[in-house]
């Protein structure tokens, strides 16, 4: 299975993905990006983070950009 990398960033900060994840296809990579977003937004501490500025850049094994998934504005 191909490995995808999920770099998470806003305009000033970046949390690069060192390990990547094996996904069957682009659809699974998109679901993994959404799962990472949900995990990040449902952390235990209260935050003042403006999630609208954050996004996941999904990259292939050569670290070429495949697509970007924006964070939703807020946790429901």
């Amino acid at each position: 299975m191909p490995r995808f990398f999920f770099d998470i960033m806003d305009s000033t900060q970046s949390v690069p993905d060192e390990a990547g994840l094996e996904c069957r296809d682009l659809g699974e990579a998109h679901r993994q990006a959404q799962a990472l977003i949900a995990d990040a937004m449902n952390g235990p501490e209260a935050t003042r983070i403006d999630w609208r500025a954050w996004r996941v850049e999904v990259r292939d094994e050569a670290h070429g950009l495949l697509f970007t998934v924006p964070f939703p504005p807020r946790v429901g």
Partner: protein
Amino acid sequence: MFTPEDEVPAERVVETLEVLLRTPPFVRSPKLARFLRFVVEEELAGRGTTIKAYTIATQALGRGPDFDPSLDPSVRVEAGRLRRALEEVYAQHAEGVEVRVSVPVGGYRPRFGTMEAAPDIAEDAPAPEPGAPPPRAADRPAPAAVGFTPRGQAAVIALLAGILLVLCIDLGLTLSARMGGASAVPRDIAVRGR
């Protein structure tokens, strides 16, 4: 179901930790390896309640004392990656792993269970994204048959009873209108006839 944490001896957890850290996802990411080692060792040392984003950032991820978890989502992001990495390890590299380590969504404290037991999907599933379908729903096996719980059965019965009641009322009103209408026509005719 997970076997409760206190039933897994600490030495088995430590052995499992070392095996996990030699698997590809953690070899590729020293950051995730430090994260996992820190939370497991803190939990085993009885300091689980002090595992917070700040302690993880400053003691495991090399961040400075000015790290502000309310503005910097690094630990939240790495926690999500750690969960995905553990899923990958248990799906693909579980040989020789005796203990299932998980970090449930909504916190950073690890939980330990025996590998003989299946993981508790409800506890480990990521929280659904608001306004969107659950991100990993497509990965879950579809149930072979759908059944109703006793509460569901009561709801269905109540719904059917309600529909029946509405139909009865509608029927009664219709009959009443027809009967009333039959007696009204002659009066109407009689009035016009005057």
